[in-house]
C-alpha cells in the first residue's frame, strides 16, 4: 500500500482490528456507556470496573470499522490499572494526537501502542472513528446515562 495508507493502517492497527483485545462484556462492571456514530453505524458499549479510583477491569462490545475497533482495543489495553485521572489525561493526549497530529513536545512514547493511531490526523474523515471509544470512556467515567454520539457538539 502507498505511504499514506500505511500511516493509517499500520500493522498493529490492523492486528487490533482483526483480533480486538478485551472484547467482552464485564459481569461485574460498575460503569458502562454506549457510543455511536450515526453516520456509519460504528457502535460500542464500554464496560468498566472502577474500584478506589482505579480501573480494575475493562471490556467492550460492538461493531464498526477497523479504526474504531483498533482504537477501542488499544484503549482498553492502555487503561487497565490506570487511575481515573490518568485515564482522563490519556484521553486528552490521544485526542490531541488524532486531531492535531504529533507535535514537537508531544510525549508520543508514553502513548505506547496508541501512537500507532497517530496517522489518523491526516485522515480527518476518520478522526471520529478513532475517538468514538474515548468519548464513550469519558461518558462512562462521568456516569452519563445517554449514549454518546460522534455528532454531539461536545465530542468535536
Amino acid at each position: 500500500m502507498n505511504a499514506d495508507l500505511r500511516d493509517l493502517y499500520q500493522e498493529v492497527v490492523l492486528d487490533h482490528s482483526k483480533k480486538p483485545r478485551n472484547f467482552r462484556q464485564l459481569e461485574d462492571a460498575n460503569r458502562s456507556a454506549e457510543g455511536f456514530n450515526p453516520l456509519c453505524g460504528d457502535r460500542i458499549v464500554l464496560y468498566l470496573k472502577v474500584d478506589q479510583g482505579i480501573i480494575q477491569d475493562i471490556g467492550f462490545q460492538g461493531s464498526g470499522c477497523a479504526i474504531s475497533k483498533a482504537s477501542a482495543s488499544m484503549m482498553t489495553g492502555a487503561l487497565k490499572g490506570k487511575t481515573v485521572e490518568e485515564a482522563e489525561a490519556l484521553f486528552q493526549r490521544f485526542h490531541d494526537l488524532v486531531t492535531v497530529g504529533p507535535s514537537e513536545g508531544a510525549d508520543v512514547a508514553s502513548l505506547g501502542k496508541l501512537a500507532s493511531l497517530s496517522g489518523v490526523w491526516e485522515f480527518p474523515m476518520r478522526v471520529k472513528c478513532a475517538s468514538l471509544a474515548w468519548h464513550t470512556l469519558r461518558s462512562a467515567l462521568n456516569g452519563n446515562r445517554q449514549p454518546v454520539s460522534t455528532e454531539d457538539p461536545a465530542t468535536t
Partner: protein
Amino acid sequence: MEEVRADFPILQQRIHGKPLVYLDSAATSQKPQAVIDAVVKFYSRDNANVHRGVHQLSERATADYEAARVKVQRFINAAKCKEIVFVRGTTEGINLVAQSFGRPRLQQGDQIVISALEHHSNIVPWQMLCEQQGAQLRVAPVNPQGEVLLPELEQLLTPRTRLLAISHISNALGTVNPVRKIVELAHRRGIPVLIDGAQAVPHLPVDVQSLDCDFYVFSGHKMFGPTGIGVLYGKEKWLEQMPPYQGGGDMILSVSFEKTVFNALPYKFEAGTPNIEAAIGLGAAIDYLEGLDVEGRIAHERELLAYGTSALSRFPGIRLIGTAAEKSSVLSFVMDDVHPHDVGTVLDREGIAVRTGHHCAQPVLRQLGVDATVRASLAFYNTQQELDALIRGLQKVREIFQ
C-alpha cells in the same frame, strides 16, 4: 464518450497521484463547462435582482431566470409554466408540500403512505406533519431485493389516506419504482401522489403529464446543475388551493398592515430573492442534456450498470445490496469483514470517490440487514475503465485486510 468527458473540467484531475474516478454522482453530479460558463456569465454580465426594476440588467436577469423556468417546464413536460416552482432542492420541495398541501388537509387519524426505501428527505417531513396533525405514517414494505411490494402498498391505501409519497429511483439501492402504476393505484382511490424524482431526472426522461403525478420534486445539483436550486412541479389545481409556504417579498401582490394580497402562481411560493444564478445554471444543464444523444446516454448507463453489477457479483466476499429487477445507476455493496469506511478510505487513496454510510436511507438499509454500504453511483460521463479501476481498488482492500 471521450468528448463528453472533456466537457467536464473537474474530471481531468488526479487524486493522490491517480486519475480521479468519480463514482459519487448520486450524492452530487459534476457540471459541464456550459453550466459553469452560464453561472459565470450571469455574474459577469447580467447580474441584477429579478422581477423588480426597470433597468436593462434587471430585465436581462429576469428574462434569463424565467427562461430557465420554461426550460424546466419543457424538460418534464408540465402543462403550464406556473406549475414550476423553484425551490432550494428536493428536500425543500417536499417540506413545502407537507406544510402547504398536507397540513390544511390532514386531520387527526388520517394517513400518509410512503415506502420503506425512501431517502430521509421523503420520510422526515411526513413524520413531522403526522406528529403535528395527529396522523399516521404508514410504510409500504420492500422485499430483500429492494423492490416495493405493490399488493402490500395497495393494502395500505385506505379512505383515510391523504397522500402517497414515493421515490422514482432509490438513492441507496438504485431500484426504479413503477411510479406510473403506483399513481394509477392511488388515483383510483382519489389519493394524490408526490414523486421524489431527485435520482431519476439525471437518468431517464420524465413526463409528469404522462405519469399524471400530482407533485414531482427534484434537485438541480443531481442533474449536472448547480446546488441550491430545485423544482417542485405541482398540478395547477393543487397549487392554486395551497396557502404560501414562506412569506416575504415577491410572493405578494401588495402589502399593507391591514391586508396583504398574495401573488399568483408560481410566485406565491417563491418568497425572497431566488438563487438566480443557480436557476440559470439549471437551465444550462437542461440545454446541455438535451444537446446529447438521449438514447445513447441511457444505453451507455445501462451497459455500465450491467458491467459493474457483473464484476461486483463475481468478486469474492462482496454482496450487492439492492438487486431489483429494474435498477438504475447505483451499485451498493458490502464486503465481508471490511467496514465500508475502511473500503472507502482505501479506494480514496486510489483516486476513487465512492460514498460510504447509510446514504440518508437508514430504514431500508436496516431492513436489508446492514448499517452502512459502499455506494458507487454512475453517470453518463463514467467509463468501463473506471469500473475496472474500482475492481482493482477493491482487490487492494482485500490485500490490506485479509
